[in-house]
């Protein structure tokens, strides 16, 4: 700034004059006395106070470096209460105050009609007169009145607690609904809501500069100078005066050179590019200072992919680098299914006094990618399918007679029947000619569909989510069915671009393995661009072979998914649903999501669609065994 420069030049000029006056007394020709000196000292103190004030208001800025070692944050179903509630709504409606009560009443009616066997009118009547529950809060909350008519004793009791009356009623009502629906309710209540994580990438200019910031680090150091000099003169203590002069050096130092860090380069290497799932991969990063600048303050964060967790070491480093110098650091990540592209490294470079910070992104010349394709392992037991068939020979038994090896029935001999099929024992015994008929065996054409709706990227705790589980199960189902001689295809429910038509053979197996592991639609991190659900549904219908049966892998998080599944069944494709259960406990919203999922399962089963429920903490094979047991004894 101009006036700053003017001040500085005047100051330096005066300094020169003062030095001259010291060297040769009398040269200046003025005779300024003690009062003038005191005035200058007071001026210095006032200026110091002003500077302290403006320092207090100052907000220096510095780069917010990303949390790359954290996994992409996965919410639990029902973390947002409103959203959990809205999925029960028949048709969307403008939200207004109190709508939670109306919505909850609708949920209660749905639950009562499903699980206590009463009609809708009966359920409504029981809500109105409160006979559906013993809980006084829940009864008051859903009874027909517009005002919340809670008995005074209960009102008084809530005054003492931390919860508001409304919240308590809401929580108790959800708990009661969950109880009627037969959903287990834990005792603990947590307000644990996962903070939404920003996944936006910093936008950088061509040379990688994201921003140049003034940190304001030494701002206000001149207050030391002014206070020291002012106090020194007033107290007539040379030592105090000197103290102030030291501050001046720091003030000048804070104005010293700027560094840009433009010449940083980075190389990244992995201990292996194609690890097994769960394998530990060591990432080694080398950062080089190719420029002429001495970088005394260099803060680095490597671009670990969203879906990989750092298990050892740190992808961060704070260091100093001389020109031409290099620094190496390493950390370990645990491999997980999918294609994981590393992001560029983020560097915050500061000059020596730390007053200026350049934030830039530095990408290695060759992008780093980690690909993990798990083997498809067959289940130790067959996966129960619906009875249906394709015209190809296979092992799936059908309810019609034809070519096969298993005895089905006998019938009267017709001229033209093969001689080897005649039941000669019977002919010998009774003299009648009859023909043996065998059970026809055909291969089923099965399409495995993984639900990749936004509502499927959920998990009870951070880590693997329902899509991961679904893909894992789909892989096992694929291997099992393929080994059993079926034609198996793979697709994504809700994403058209992911599709592998039913087939068999070595190449087909390899293709399925590749698709399940690496297709972006099945990735551990949800794709950013949305898909048009109508287009996806239409394409799926046109691709499904007429005689195929479908296995859908879905946590059943949304009514729209359930509608799609019912649509498939109605269109004549026998559907089986495999449903990993990602619901958690702890908040009313989560319990409500659990009730919602239970309703979906009940409704699907009511339509004759078998649902394989897969608890979060049990292996898929166990769930399949239990399911097979259930189906054997209906």
């Amino acid at each position, binding site marked *: 700034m101009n006036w700053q420069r003017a001040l500085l030049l005047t100051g330096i000029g005066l300094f020169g004059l003062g030095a001259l006056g010291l060297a040769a007394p009398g040269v200046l020709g003025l005779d300024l006395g003690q009062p003038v000196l005191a005035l200058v000292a007071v001026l210095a103190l006032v200026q110091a106070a002003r500077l302290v004030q403006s320092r207090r208001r100052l907000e220096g800025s510095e780069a917010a470096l990303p949390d790359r070692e954290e996994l992409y944050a996965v919410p639990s179903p029902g973390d947002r209460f409103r959203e959990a509630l809205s999925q029960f709504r028949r048709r969307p409606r403008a939200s207004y105050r109190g709508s939670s009560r109306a919505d909850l009443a609708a949920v209660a009616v749905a639950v009562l009609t499903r699980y206590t066997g009463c009609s809708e009118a009966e359920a409504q009547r029981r809500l109105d007169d409160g006979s559906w529950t013993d809980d006084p809060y829940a009864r008051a909350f859903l009874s027909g009145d517009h005002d919340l008519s809670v008995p005074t004793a209960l009102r008084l009791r809530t005054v003492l607690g931390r919860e508001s009356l409304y919240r308590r009623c809401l929580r108790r009502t959800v708990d009661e609904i969950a109880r009627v629906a037969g959903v287990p309710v834990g005792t603990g209540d947590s307000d644990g809501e996962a903070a939404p994580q920003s996944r936006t990438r910093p936008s950088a200019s061509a040379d990688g500069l994201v921003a140049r910031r003034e940190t304001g680090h030494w701002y206000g150091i001149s207050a030391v100078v002014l206070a020291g000099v002012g106090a020194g003169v007033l107290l007539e203590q040379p*030592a105090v005066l000197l103290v102030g002069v030291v501050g001046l050096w720091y003030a000048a130092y804070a104005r010293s050179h700027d560094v840009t860090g433009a010449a940083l380069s980075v190389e990244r290497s992995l201990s292996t590019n194609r690890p097994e799932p769960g394998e530990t991969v060591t990432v080694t990063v080398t950062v080089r200072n190719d420029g002429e600048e001495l970088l005394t303050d260099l803060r680095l964060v490597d671009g670990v992919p969203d879906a990989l967790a750092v298990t050892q070491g740190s992808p961060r480093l704070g260091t100093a680098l001389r020109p031409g110098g290099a620094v190496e650091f390493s950390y370990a990540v645990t491999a997980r299914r999918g294609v994981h592209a590393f992001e560029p490294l983020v560097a915050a470079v500061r000059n020596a006094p730390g007053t200026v910070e350049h934030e830039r992104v530095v990408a290695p010349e060759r992008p780093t990618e980690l690909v993990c394709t798990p083997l498809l392992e067959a289940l130790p037991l067959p996966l129960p399918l619906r009875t249906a068939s394709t015209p190809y020979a296979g092992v799936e038994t059908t309810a019609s007679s034809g070519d096969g090896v298993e005895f089905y029935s006998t019938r009267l001999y017709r001229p033209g029947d093969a001689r080897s099929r005649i039941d000669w024992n019977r002919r010998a015994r009774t003299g009648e000619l009859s023909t043996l008929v065998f059970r026809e065996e055909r291969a089923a054409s099965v399409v495995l569909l993984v639900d990749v709706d936004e509502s499927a990227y959920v998990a009870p705790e951070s880590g693997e989510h329902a899509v991961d589980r679904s893909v894992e199960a789909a892989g096992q189902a694929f291997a099992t069915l393929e080994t059993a001689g079926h034609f198996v295809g793979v697709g994504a429910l809700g994403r058209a671009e992911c599709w592998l038509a039913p087939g068999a053979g070595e190449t087909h197996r390899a293709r399925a393995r590749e698709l399940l592991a690496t297709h972006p639609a099945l990735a551990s991190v949800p794709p950013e661009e949305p898909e048009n659900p109508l287009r996806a549904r239409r394409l799926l219908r046109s691709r499904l072979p007429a005689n195929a049966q479908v296995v859908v892998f879905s946590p059943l998080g949304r009514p729209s998914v359930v509608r799609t599944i019912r649509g498939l069944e109605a269109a004549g494709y026998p559907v089986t649903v495999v449903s990993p259960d990602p619901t958690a406990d702890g908040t009313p919203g989560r319990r409500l999501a659990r009730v919602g999922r239970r309703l979906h399962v009940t409704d699907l089963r009511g339509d004759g669609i078998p649902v394989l429920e897969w608890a979060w903490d049990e292996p898929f094979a166990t769930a399949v065994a239990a399911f097979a047991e259930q189906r054997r004894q209906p």
Partner: protein
Amino acid sequence: MIDRSPTRLASVLATVVALGGVVVTGVYSWLALALGGVGFLVLTAGVLVGNRAGVTTGAAVLFLGVLGAGFDGAPALVALVGTVAAILAWDCATTAISLGRQLGRDAPTGRLELVGAATTAAIGTGAAAVTYGLFVLVEGGESLTALVFLVLAVVLIASALR
């Protein structure tokens, strides 16, 4: 979760340097010892919880302690050492906080912290040495007018640099 508290090395350096400054000036003056003690406690608390305002306040009180020592007639060299200590402690503490926020406590940052502290210490030592040299050189001169000029020059330059 990433531990965002201030980094260890710079925090320890800050408290050690601050304590050193208090001891050096406190020997000469009760006022310096009292103010310095309070400043040390505030600064340590600030660096423990990662509060920049606390650290700055603590360092300011440390500096007031040094002024107090000068008022009680401590030698110029002691006052200079105390000032450099207060500034260095403040620099280390704020670096620890900013490093903790940007990189976290578990990241290896020792080299950066050492280089930063060494640079600030070197600047301070140089500044103190040159200032003290000048002081010794001109101690005999008895021109009040020249002193007015010099002080005014320092005030103007300091205001320009902020």
